């Protein structure tokens, strides 16, 4: 062998030794790790961690490790105290008093007081639609250092669920942080949760550290309520947009938890002895929003025709590829929620092409093209849309599929002339009056407006008698299925993968790493 060839062989050996030296496995837990941190791969970058200012679910997943609210949800989606010691409602139901827990400190060392609660609620109700709809006429005040009071012009059952919701959550921050932010997003993420903010390296990670002075509630974990602790010292939330990279990363041990695993990978990952898979449910519902201002869909009979025609099993099977990841259910609320009713199920998933054609005839539909907006950023929506188009063409509708990236779709959806139907998903609403597409005053989505619906929703808000409210909700669901502001396609579950040594992982409404350890 010549000297040159020997050199090549030598370089190859050095590279192999280098690669072997780079081996990622080390010693420790059952599959070779020793650490006191969790590395969590998320599919998106949060736009902000200021929860008062966003409905983005990725922001909730991270920020709810740092922030807490006055009240929260137990495993039955009932509102229970969190930072409040208890909830006291006056006999006339117009005054809600929240005596605060006295052992709570913020991450900056300040003890939580009623002024912080007042400042937080006032900011939240300024920026959030739920806050405006429930508290715009209310007075929020501090009765004393440890008691906050909300005084309402009339009784409302919607206030507590709105305060407990995670989407644009009413989290409590120090008054000083709020004052410093003014109308801008807060720049200091100071909460009372089990983890505190460490560092945000843009496009790399968000690091949260265990908050040593956190005082958990007593008892067992119960939904988002009960005992929640930081069992690891560090949390790293890593945005990994590419799904294949998330999957490879969880398989190789680069990540300990990976969210938003594509359903196609289920069979491969479930056979990997190093991994545990969690099917997250309830998670979200997939819907088609109808533009009630469009020429075609302003006619309720066309909307009913679409609902009559759709074969939802075929659509959801196409979306997920596996019946384990969806359920077909007519409920506006999920089965796991106390509000659930199945009123109107005969008008759901009918697969009745003859009825659909009849309704189209009655509506005077004469084959004009309709635009169905969808994005490939959420592949399951695109797959659903392809099947929807096919099914609607069977009843004689001419459907143009318009595919955009997600920001473009959101932007175009605001233009009433740009679309007829739009595919999207909605996360869990804590109670019915939060349902965005039902209440015309939210001015959301397809601009559905029925004064009767608004009146029913107000009646629900006006009572604290749950049984009475649920009776009214039955009418809401029935009217919703008649008016068809949307076509509900089905409830879809999420898929989350964890390394086997990650213990205590659970999913409730959002991904949570409290009470999770590495063993």
């Amino acid at each position, binding site marked *: 062998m010549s000297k040159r060839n020997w050199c090549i062989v030598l370089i190859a050996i050095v590279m192999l030794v280098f690669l072997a030296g780079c081996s990622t496995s080390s010693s420790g837990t059952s599959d070779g790790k020793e650490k006191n941190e969790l590395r969590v791969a998320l599919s998106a970058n949060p736009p902000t961690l200021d929860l008062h200012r966003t409905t983005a679910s990725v922001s909730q997943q991270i920020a709810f490790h740092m922030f807490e609210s006055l009240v929260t949800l137990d495993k039955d989606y009932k509102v229970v105290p969190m930072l409040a010691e208890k909830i006291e409602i006056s006999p006339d139901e117009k005054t809600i008093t929240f005596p605060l827990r006295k052992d709570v400190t913020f991450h900056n060392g300040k003890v939580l007081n009623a002024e912080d609660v007042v400042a937080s609620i006032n900011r939240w109700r300024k920026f959030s639609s739920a806050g405006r709809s429930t508290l715009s006429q209310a007075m929020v005040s501090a009765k004393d250092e440890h008691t906050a009071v909300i005084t309402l012009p009339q009784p409302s059952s919607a206030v507590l669920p709105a305060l407990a919701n995670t989407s644009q959550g009413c989290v409590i921050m120090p008054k000083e942080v709020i004052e410093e932010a003014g109308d801008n997003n807060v720049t200091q993420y100071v909460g009372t949760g089990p983890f505190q903010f460490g560092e945000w390296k843009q496009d790399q990670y968000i690091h949260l550290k265990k908050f040593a002075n956190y005082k958990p509630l007593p008892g067992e974990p119960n939904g988002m309520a009960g005992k929640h602790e930081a069992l690891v010292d560090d949390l790293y939330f890593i945005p990994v947009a590419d799904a294949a990279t998330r999957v490879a990363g969880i398989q190789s041990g680069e990540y300990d938890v990976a969210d938003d695993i594509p359903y196609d990978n289920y069979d491969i990952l479930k056979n990997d002895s190093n991994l545990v898979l969690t099917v997250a449910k309830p998670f979200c519902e997939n819907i088609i929003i109808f533009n009630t201002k469009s020429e075609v869909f302003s006619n309720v009979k066309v909307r009913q025709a679409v609902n009559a025609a759709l074969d939802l099993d075929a659509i959801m099977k196409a979306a997920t590829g596996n019946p384990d990841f969806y359920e077909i259910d007519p409920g506006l609320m999920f089965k796991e929620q106390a509000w659930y009713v199945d009123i109107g199920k005969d008008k759901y998933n009918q697969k009745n092409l003859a009825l659909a054609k009849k309704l189209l005839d009655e509506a005077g539909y004469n084959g004009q093209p309709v635009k169905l907006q969808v994005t490939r950023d959420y592949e399951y929506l695109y797959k659903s849309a392809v099947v929807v188009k096919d099914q609607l063409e069977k009843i004689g509708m001419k459907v143009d599929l318009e595919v955009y990236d997600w920001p473009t779709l959101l932007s175009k959806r605001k233009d009433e002339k740009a679309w007829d139907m739009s595919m999207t998903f909605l996360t869990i609403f804590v109670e019915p009056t939060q349902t965005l597409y039902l209440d015309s005053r939210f001015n*959301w989505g397809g601009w559905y407006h029925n004064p009767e619906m608004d009146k029913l929703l107000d009646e629900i808000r006006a009572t604290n008698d749950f049984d009475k409210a649920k009776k009214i909700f039955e009418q809401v669901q029935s009217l919703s299925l008649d008016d068809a502001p949307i076509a509900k396609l089905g409830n879809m579950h999420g898929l989350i993968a964890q390394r086997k040594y990650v213990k205590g992982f659970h999913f409730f409404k959002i991904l949570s790493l409290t009470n999770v350890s590495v063993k």
Partner: protein
Amino acid sequence: MAQYIFRRVISLIPILIVVAVVDFIIIHLTPGDPAAVMLGSEATETDLANLREQLGLNLPIYIQFGKWILGVLQGDLGRSIFINMPVTQAIWQHLGPTISLTLLAEIIAVLFAIPLGVMAATHRGTWSDQSFMMIALLGISIPSFWLGLNFILLFAVKLNWLPAAGYQPLSNGLVNHLKYLILPAISLGIMQGALIARMTRSSMLEVLNENYILTAEAKGLSQRVVIYKHALKNAFIPILTVIGLTFATLIGGAVVTETVFNIPGIGKLIVNSVLRRDYVVIQGTVLMIAVAYVLINLFVDILYAYIDPRVRYDGKA
């Protein structure tokens, strides 16, 4: 030479003005609303309108352009809507990973490409030349993301030798830094290397037929001296051009590789900014890439003169 450099620097100005205007217009013609991305899909129209007003997104487009260009002229590329920091700072934060990745990819490309290209030229027509040509063609044809995904599957998932994705800065140790960069650098470097190797081969072939090479051989100089001292040095200008171009391309073009390997570089910054319609970041980053591209080309031009004494730009030669 100094005059040449001065002229080139001055000629940057109209280029950058055109880039800035086109950049701004294209981005603002693209549909999409930063407020909708920031507030999430469940935001109501009232919330969106309030945020748009707060961010100045409802101002007429010419006023937005005027404000931005005025800032640029004062060295201020603006402030990101999403990441809440000046664009220059965002670019600076993302520049390190991209420079590291680009340098490593370029080193890998050059280290393998030049010896292989020289070998192919000196063994013209033999089986090793033909195999080299085939491998180079394959290297140019394989998309780097596909190569990257397969590297991840092999070296991270199956062998567990290297991390699947991510980035560690140099301050965390050289080995740590390199072990996160080696796979993306190889997948990027292969394509660039194939280009450089093909150029090396053809340029060497041209030079090897020159009379001065025959003279050198006739003088009894060793093969090594003839090839590396006389032939390669004279064949190097077109090779250098390709190296410069590939380097400039990598600075702004490692977008897909950075996404697949989750490297927080400039490519990732652009992709994320486009996805969230963070206009000022896109504008600033594109402008920065344009500057980098022109400067790298200027640097390559200066190197020409250093390598080849016949090249003079000041008109005196």
